[in-house]
């Protein structure tokens, strides 16, 4: 059967990984790409971090943000996850004809505001318009460059006993977007879309033994933690009772048949750090607005090599795998 690209390939799960690892990376073959970090660390006058992301979210305006804000925060955060100070972004629009100019103005204003907050500049860009039906209102791509200040952040550095910390509640963005797409009421549920510059600054100030930072976007917390340990001698054990999830998000997910641990986050990060510095880093994170609900949720362990295991609130154990493709809601 011919292989075709389906939506599963874009969901951040196993199919996405396979497409990247088996087709794209071998074709393009270079060490910076092969490391498959949130961004690439490359040589320039100093060490640079370079990252790109495309944004295709629907609806383009959602509670807590819009596609413009997302396009800046997403790339800024990816650079921060490389230990870099984000500086310059490019920005490309692919606009479907028929988009009201007022909508574009709102999006551009969001972009401007977010750039100002993060002290980054959009220094180059492009705009294209396609016929009705050939786009979905607007797609945005941003690519960003930053100067590496904290080198060596890499999942390869995690060790047995390291603490796993999350910066706040999980599943907010994915759930808010799904609810607004379905037209159901969302109450107070908002996307957590935010740039994590201050938070990362506080983390690095508190400890120089941070192994890796990563933002759990598509595929959620569970997919990202799996990526750290797949095919390795180490695994991760987390405690369900310690993972912060807003009750509204849990309730919405229960209704929709989804799991918050697999829902996208756009303003959160995972920090793996030496256990001796865990409490210090946690305290520093909690001082920041974006880290006020930070929590230590588990440890890296040699007990379950290659796997992510969760101890449930009832004392049993549950294996959390990477998503294969997009989450499909369970009904009956």
């Amino acid at each position, binding site marked *: 059967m011919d292989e075709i690209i389906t939506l599963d390939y874009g969901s951040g799960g196993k199919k996405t990984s396979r497409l990247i690892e088996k087709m794209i990376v071998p074709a393009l073959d270079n060490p910076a790409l092969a490391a498959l970090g949130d961004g690439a660390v490359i040589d320039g006058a100093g060490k640079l971090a370079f990252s790109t992301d495309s944004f295709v979210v629907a609806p383009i305006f959602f509670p807590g943000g819009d596609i413009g804000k997302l396009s800046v925060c997403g790339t800024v955060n990816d650079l921060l996850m490389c230990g870099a100070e984000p500086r310059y972004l490019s920005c490309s629009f692919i606009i479907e004809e028929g988009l009201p100019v007022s909508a574009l103005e709102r999006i551009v204003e969001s972009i401007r505001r977010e750039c100002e907050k993060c002290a980054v500049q959009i220094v180059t860009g492009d705009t294209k318009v396609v016929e009705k039906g050939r786009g979905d209102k607007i797609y945005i791509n941003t690519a960003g460059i930053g100067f590496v200040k904290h080198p060596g952040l890499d999942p390869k550095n995690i060790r047995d006993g390291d603490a796993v910390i999350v910066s706040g509640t999980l599943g907010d963005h994915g759930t808010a977007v799904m609810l607004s797409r379905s037209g159901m009421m969302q109450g107070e549920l908002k996307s957590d879309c935010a740039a994590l510059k201050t938070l990362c600054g506080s983390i690095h100030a508190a400890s120089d033994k941070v192994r890796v930072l990563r933002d759990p976007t598509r595929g959620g917390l569970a997919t990202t933690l799996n990526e750290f340990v797949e095919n390795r001698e180490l695994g991760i054990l987390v405690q369900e009772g310690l993972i912060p999830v807003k009750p509204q998000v849990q309730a919405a997910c229960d209704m929709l048949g989804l799991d918050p641990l697999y829902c996208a986050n756009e303003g959160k990060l995972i920090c793996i750090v030496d256990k001796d510095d865990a409490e210090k880093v946690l305290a520093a994170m909690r001082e920041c607005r974006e880290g006020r609900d930070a929590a230590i949720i588990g440890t890296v362990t040699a007990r379950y090599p290659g796997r992510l295991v969760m101890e449930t609130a009832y*004392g049993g154990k549950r294996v959390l795998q990477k998503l*294969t493709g997009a989450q499909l809601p*369970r009904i009956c």
Partner: protein
Amino acid sequence: MRSVEKLSAAIRDIPVGDVRLMEVCGTHTMSIAKSGIKSMLPENVKLLSGPGCPVCVTPPQVIDAILELSMRPDVIITSYGDMLRVPGSKRGDSLLRRRALGARVEMVYSPLDAIKTAEENPDKEIVFLGVGFETTAPGTAAAVLTANEKGVENFSILSMLKIVEPALNALIKMEGFNIDGFICPGHVAVILGERGFEYLPQEHLLPGAIAGFEPEDILLAIYKLLKRIEQKRPGIDNCYLRAVSCEGNTLAQQMVKRCFEPRRDIWRGLGAIEESGLGLREEYSGFDAEKRFDIRFSEVETPTACRCGDVICGRIEPKLCPMYGRLCTPEDPVGPCMVSSEGACAAAMKYAGI
């Protein structure tokens, strides 16, 4: 937390030998896996997943017919999410794949949403995939009655609805059947009531416990079953009193009877079972997609090395299927036991060594 601990301890204290309990509900399978109950049970108590996932027991030739239907340009398929990734007899072929190839496939939470789609697309034929057991049957009946009332003619349902009792009877009568008790599906019981399961002790001398979906509910059901097994006293225990009554939801039962009648149906792994499926009555045959599109299903299952049927019935453990973990994996499932993330095979792969 305390009640879970108390129940686990109480279960451990019951002096029974090796006991095999079967649950027959996909949501129970999920709930058991999510809460990690199995690791709280003593070694002698084994939990098996029976034919309780309506998606899992849909034979591949039915999926094939649906896939073919989906490619008609005038058809919009509306379906619950679970069905979208189920492969037919050809590997990798599913509604999701067909959608990528241009088929109109929409996920709905309720069959009433499908009626809305029909009203919004008067030039298309909207087909709702009516999959499920007694839990979803009333909702499907409601959709037929609503479409009838409103005169929505471009709407039809493909009924794959099934009845649990004939399948359990067939399972129990099979050679080599060795299950000591059933954890009965809580939501089916909401519709059928305690009455709906009395055939287990009355005809087969087997105990049944109707369970809800929280870990405490399931552990309580297991406790009750073990007590009955210890005392050799078959009967039905209703451990889901907050939702299940003696008679069940009689209004829902009547709605289903009004629209549907029992008919012979094919279950993956069990073959054809008399009176085990629900087909639309003559009066509502105008809404029957099988008639509208002249769909016929062959009775013989396309032979493959897949042993899903045996796994679903608890006859073999997943690892004894020759395809398990090799040609059949969660990313590339052959049979539905691997499609569902907590299906017997997918679960076995995930929990190996835990």
